[in-house]
């Protein structure tokens, strides 16, 4: 579980995250918001890549306030950026092995962790396939394996369904749902479909602030009133954004 307290993040004087206080997890948490809402910056901050300009956050109750705490937190966090990289000449197995090494998985446990996580993402039979030979969906699954290896308590996925066809998205959601039973999975998306399919909590973000935090049913309930959108969840999402705009005016 991650808890952020008055978290602020800025870049070149522009505020990206504006005093965010939120508790994420356990289970699946979807960060929903338009482009530029601050979802990626929030995930980077929680992944300990970009230290907050002010405020604090904790992972499983451990506040990150020292080099030692930072190291400890990184053991607990698995992170997959939206545009994640890979070495095309590596096999899937070596790619995940490297991730296990990077994540500090003890040497004796690495092979079993790699085998287990490849099984989880349905890539066990492609373990010896070179990364360059994988399809787009398979590469995403290999990326998920990168984030999952070592059994992190928190998994952060930035726009993981971008570029996947409908069939791949279904398979992907199934994997994430299973992960959510063992770890806190925080994923960002701008697709309401993903939120609907995955369930769990939803945080609607815009301009660096959390406008809504609740279950998908609670968000859908806001869409009962007349508004644009094809589904109650979409209408609820649009309603939250419109309310925020109205308040700002």
């Amino acid at each position, binding site marked *: 579980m991650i808890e952020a307290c008055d978290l602020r*993040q800025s870049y070149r004087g522009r505020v990206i995250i504006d005093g965010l206080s939120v508790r994420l997890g356990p289970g699946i948490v979807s960060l929903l918001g338009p482009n530029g809402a601050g979802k990626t910056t929030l995930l980077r901050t929680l992944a300990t890549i970009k230290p907050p300009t002010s405020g604090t956050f904790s992972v499983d109750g451990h506040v990150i306030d020292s080099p030692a705490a930072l190291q400890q937190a990184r053991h607990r966090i698995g992170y997959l950026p939206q545009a994640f990289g890979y070495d095309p000449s590596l096999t899937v197995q070596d790619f995940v092995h490297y991730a296990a090494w990077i994540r500090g998985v003890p040497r004796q446990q690495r092979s079993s962790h790699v085998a287990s996580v490849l099984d989880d993402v349905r890539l066990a039979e492609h373990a010896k396939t070179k990364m360059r030979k994988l399809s787009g969906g398979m590469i995403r699954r290999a990326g998920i394996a990168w984030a999952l290896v070592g059994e992190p308590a928190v998994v952060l996925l930035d726009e993981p369904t971008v570029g996947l066809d409908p069939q791949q998205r279904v398979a992907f959601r199934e994997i994430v749902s299973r992960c959510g039973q063992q770890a806190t999975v925080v994923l960002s998306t701008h697709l309401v479909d993903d939120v609907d399919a995955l369930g769990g909590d939803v945080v609607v973000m815009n301009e660096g602030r959390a406008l809504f935090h609740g279950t998908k049913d609670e968000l859908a309930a806001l869409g009962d009133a007349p508004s644009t959108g094809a589904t109650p969840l979409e209408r609820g999402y649009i309603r939250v954004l419109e309310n925020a705009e109205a308040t700002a005016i």
Partner: protein
Amino acid sequence: MRLIGVLRHANALWLLPFLIAVDLSMIFLRDDHWVGVWPETAVAAQMPAMFLAMLAAAYAAWTARREERLGLAEQLEASVRPRWQRELLGVASIAAVTVVAYCVGFVVALARTLPQSPPGFSLVPGYWLLGLFPMLAAVGAGWILGKYLPSAIAAVVAGIGGFLAFAYFGEIGGERIVVISGYPDTHVDLFVVLTRVAAAVALCAVAILLPVRKPRSLRGAEQPSYPWARPLVLVPACVVVMISVFALGRAAGPAIAERAAVDPLCRGDQMKLCLWPEHEKYAPVVAEISQRVEALPDIFVREEDVAWEYGLRYRVDRLDDGTVDLGDEEQGSSTFEIFDGSPGAITREIARMISWRGYQGECAREVDEARDVTLRIDSWLEHYLAGGGSPGQIPAGDPEVGEQLQRGFDVANGDLSREEQFEWAEEQVEEYRSICPRDGQS
């Protein structure tokens, strides 16, 4: 990580066959005089280190920011492993592949000499270590360039820079970094060469520890970090470490040191020719030369004489081209050298020695006619002692000198019988004495 995975990750595995091919080509595309002599074999196997180093420098420069090029920077920023450990993986992989290629060449070269099992194997490890230094230093230097320059530019600069460094500045304290001859009278000072290897390892460590600027998208407020890991502390510390280690490397002195004389290997009776034991393979050639010397007219040979391979008895400065400058007072000393395994070089040295000890004196330098006679005699002696029978031309040089040398050469390699050659030689000596009556009479 599994070793193979490490190498694959560093993309260094494909480099191995290429480096081995370069190494073996360097060893076997030159002449094979080194086969059968341990120090020469070790030097032949050590020489490719220079080329491997250039390639390793270029490849390290190209690889230093490879993860960034592959788009891995953001994932790795969240890594439990500190950056230096990930860089260590890259540097160690390239160094390991380069050293493995070098070792393969070494083992193959040693296997060529092994059947002859000459003495002197103890000289081999020093030369092996000598080759490690440029390779490890090149990996470190290439990695540093790659960290701060665009990869393609860094690779070109490291490769070409490495070549220029070795070609024009490849010396430490006036001594070549990579040696080209394994004379049996010298050995590698292990302390000095280990100091150099330590300096190269230190350079690699500095290459790994030096901080890099993060990609723009990942820059932000400083991470809470250990004080020693901050650039303001790290960079000066790295510079101090480098200067200290290299100063120590220079202060340690030359890596190639003279060996103490050992029990020589001598051939011949009246004219004994003594070799370093490591040059055992030349013993049959030397025995034949000795027999030919003994058969020379009395005017050339003392009743009993001994000639020593360089370093067994006399030590004088070796010139840049590897030949020996005996100096004025040493002219006529009973010293010869086997230079790059050439029997011609042996007989050239012995011919000069015989002339000086038999009939020649200072007059040969002062009077042109006397010089011409000695050139003819020395040329004849050289080729007669080598066994003759190799008609050809003396390489062009000073036309006057070449003409005299050619005349001696023609006598040794022409149709004259041995007795007729001796007769000619005695006439030449008489002519010399008529020009320089006081020389060679003492």
